[in-house]
């Protein structure tokens, strides 16, 4: 129940309207620090919309999304920050400082840069014409940009930049080793097989040093062996890297096996929220996924006078 005792991200009253269509309606949930949280629901339920709101690719119509990298989200601090006109409050004046972030006010790149939320995409978005290694170096852009003195030091070949670049390569190699792609570091990312591309996208997101990793259907298109390896990777990320995971997934073997917390939405509304066991036994969830028995439909129709 870490999502209640130590929430990393608190979403309250999130609504996203596209013209007349309400994709997400007054949705509230919390993501616990150190948890793997799964966001599930039938097709078109609004899961990816929620992701796009959290990562800043959509500006929500209304709602609050508070993320704290500095202990549990404190309602009083959130209220104080919301009353101000600021987007975030850092504990100290440093580039990678911890703090409290109001995601609904921040542009997408700043959410990745300052609030340290990383994401992957349902349709893989690598840099296909760059090498596997380059993909992971680009992910460390902000750190390297500072080390290169906003290019001025780097242009004259300063040692500080060369050190920072070596460090970046080491971090990239750690993740390449972790996903078993070290040997292919110099190949074009677009030339990798599909399953490798999926893992590379996760590694690239991890190279940004995220506190929250948002994965949009990471197991889509993977075979059972690759799915098992993915489960191991995600558990390792949670246990070894102080990174919490929020994932959208249709593969229930992934969801039920590795999640600590499951949130079910349908038609943009939250219909269930709890541990995997409690959610899988929730009749509303069963109805949303499998439909209801014929006699129940008959009763409902009789009640409606049909």
């Amino acid at each position, binding site marked *: 129940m870490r999502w209640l005792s130590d929430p990393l991200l608190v979403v309250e009253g999130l609504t996203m309207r596209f013209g007349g269509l309400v994709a997400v309606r007054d949705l509230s949930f919390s993501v616990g620090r150190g948890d793997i949280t799964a966001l599930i629901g039938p097709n078109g339920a609004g899961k990816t919309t929620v992701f796009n709101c959290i*990562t800043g*690719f959509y500006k929500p119509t209304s709602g609050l999304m508070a993320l704290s990298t500095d202990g549990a989200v404190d309602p009083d601090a959130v209220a104080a920050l919301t009353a101000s006109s600021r987007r975030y409050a850092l504990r100290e004046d440093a580039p990678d400082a911890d703090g409290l972030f109001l995601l609904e006010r921040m542009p*997408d*790149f*700043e959410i*990745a*840069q300052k609030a340290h939320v*990383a*994401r992957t*995409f349902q349709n893989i*978005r*690598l*840099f*296909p*014409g*760059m*090498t596997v*290694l*380059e993909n992971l*170096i*680009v*992910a460390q*852009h*902000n750190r*390297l*940009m500072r080390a*290169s003195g906003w*290019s001025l030091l*780097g*242009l004259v*070949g300063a040692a500080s*930049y060369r050190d920072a*670049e070596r460090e970046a*390569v080491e971090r990239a*190699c750690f993740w390449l080793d972790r996903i078993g792609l070290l*040997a292919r*570091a*110099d190949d*074009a*990312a*677009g*030339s990798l097989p599909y399953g490798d591309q999926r893992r590379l996208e996760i590694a*690239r*997101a991890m190279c*940004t040093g995220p506190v929250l990793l948002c994965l949009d259907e990471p197991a889509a298109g993977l075979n059972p062996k690759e799915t098992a390896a993915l489960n191991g990777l995600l558990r390792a990320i949670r246990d070894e890297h102080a990174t919490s995971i929020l994932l959208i997934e249709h593969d229930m073997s992934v969801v039920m096996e590795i999640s600590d917390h499951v949130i079910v939405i349908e038609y943009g509304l939250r219909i269930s929220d709890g541990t995997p066991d409690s959610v899988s036994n929730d009749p509303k969830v069963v109805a949303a996924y499998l439909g209801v028995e014929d006699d129940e439909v008959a009763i409902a129709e009789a009640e409606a006078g049909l």
Partner: protein
Amino acid sequence: MSAGGNGSTRSTLPPEPVSMREAARKAARDALPWALVTLGLCFPIILLRTEQDLSNRIVLNVRPFLTLGLVLAVFLGRFLWLLAAHLPRPKAPAFPRLDLAANGARWFPYVGLAALFLFPFLSLALAGPSGAIKWVDNFGVQILIYVMLGWGLNIVVGLAGLLDLGYVAFYAVGAYTYAIIATYVIPATLPVLGPWAFWICLPLAGLLAALWGVILGFPVLRLRGDYLAIVTLAFGEIIRLVLINWVALTNGPSGIQTPRITFFGLPFTSPNGGTTVGSLLGLPGTPTVHRSIFLYYVILALALLVAAVTQRMRRLPVGRAWEALREDEIACRSLGLNTVNTKLTAFAMGALFGGLAGAFFGARQGFVSPKSFEFLESATILAIVVLGGMGSLVGVAIAAIVVIGGIELLRELDWMKSIFGEDFDPGQYRMLIFGLAMVVVMIWRPRGLMSARQPSIVLHDGKAIAGAHVKEGHG
């Protein structure tokens, strides 16, 4: 005209074994409609021709032999082309491979550099002092200006993937910065700096052009693809129209006569017999030759500076961000890259190099006017970048040599008169031949001469990335 053109010549499968006689019959059947279409096309434009005779009357000149010759040529050409597919072919690829870098030809840039440094003296030795001016100035300097412009635009289009159709605007900003400051500002304020005008204006021109790059960058940040192209096109035209209409500053369409470049303060020509470079160093030849050779080395140094800075930036976070932006802008934002800054730095760097080239152009030409900065210039520079292979410095340089050198070489088509008769004016066909050559090259190598991309950092062993994986950007 592809009747029966079932692409058998391009098929990867070996042609089925048919007898030569059968193949010839098929080829003839295929070539016949080609000949008929040619005849139809030739009828109104080649066969019948009206001409004025000496008393200004129009007479009809019928040219059956020329028409017949053309029809026969098309027929035979198609016939032999089809027949050639049935001959036993060697295993080698049909076209020579040009991926020099991909094939490990690392010597190429060095040999190219040495040739560039020796070029003025080679042309002096081969063509003599008077003939060398044409080669050094019309070819060497002209080509190197476009190499530099191509490398500048390459940052915006080739690396960052932002389609810019108004690049000539920055070239104009640089040229006019030089013209205005060197002609009006310096003589009016500090005339003692007069001989140094070019060297003072060069950095100013670069900085002002970069500023204009940022000014253009802001409004187009949200635009992509066709929309970005249209707005940059409009920007180029706006700058040109301002140059034409702001007569008080730019002297309008009549242009500005600018001071000539000096050898670090020492003039090449002196009207009243003062010290010149030639007289001081006791050089042979005319001052024009001295100036051409000096100009050549100035533009060579500027172009190499652009190449060095570009190569270095590709290995810095900002350069990798440009390429990542070309590959996938959304992924960039998800990784915390500020795409606004990334685009603005790309526009600013591209414009900076364009401005430097512009200042050089002003000093070399001795005259700037809006005529030099029309859309055709932007199109030529873009053609160089696309033809060279977006992102490749060597490719862009080769493309500049081919395009600019080709246009200049096509001025020398007088030998065609011996084929088509004395009243044939080859100058009229210059752009037609050039356009056809461009089409052929783009069919041959649709992603440019050098489509492979060199990685900016290597872990195990460096190998080029096939062009097929590299994105072209969405604008």
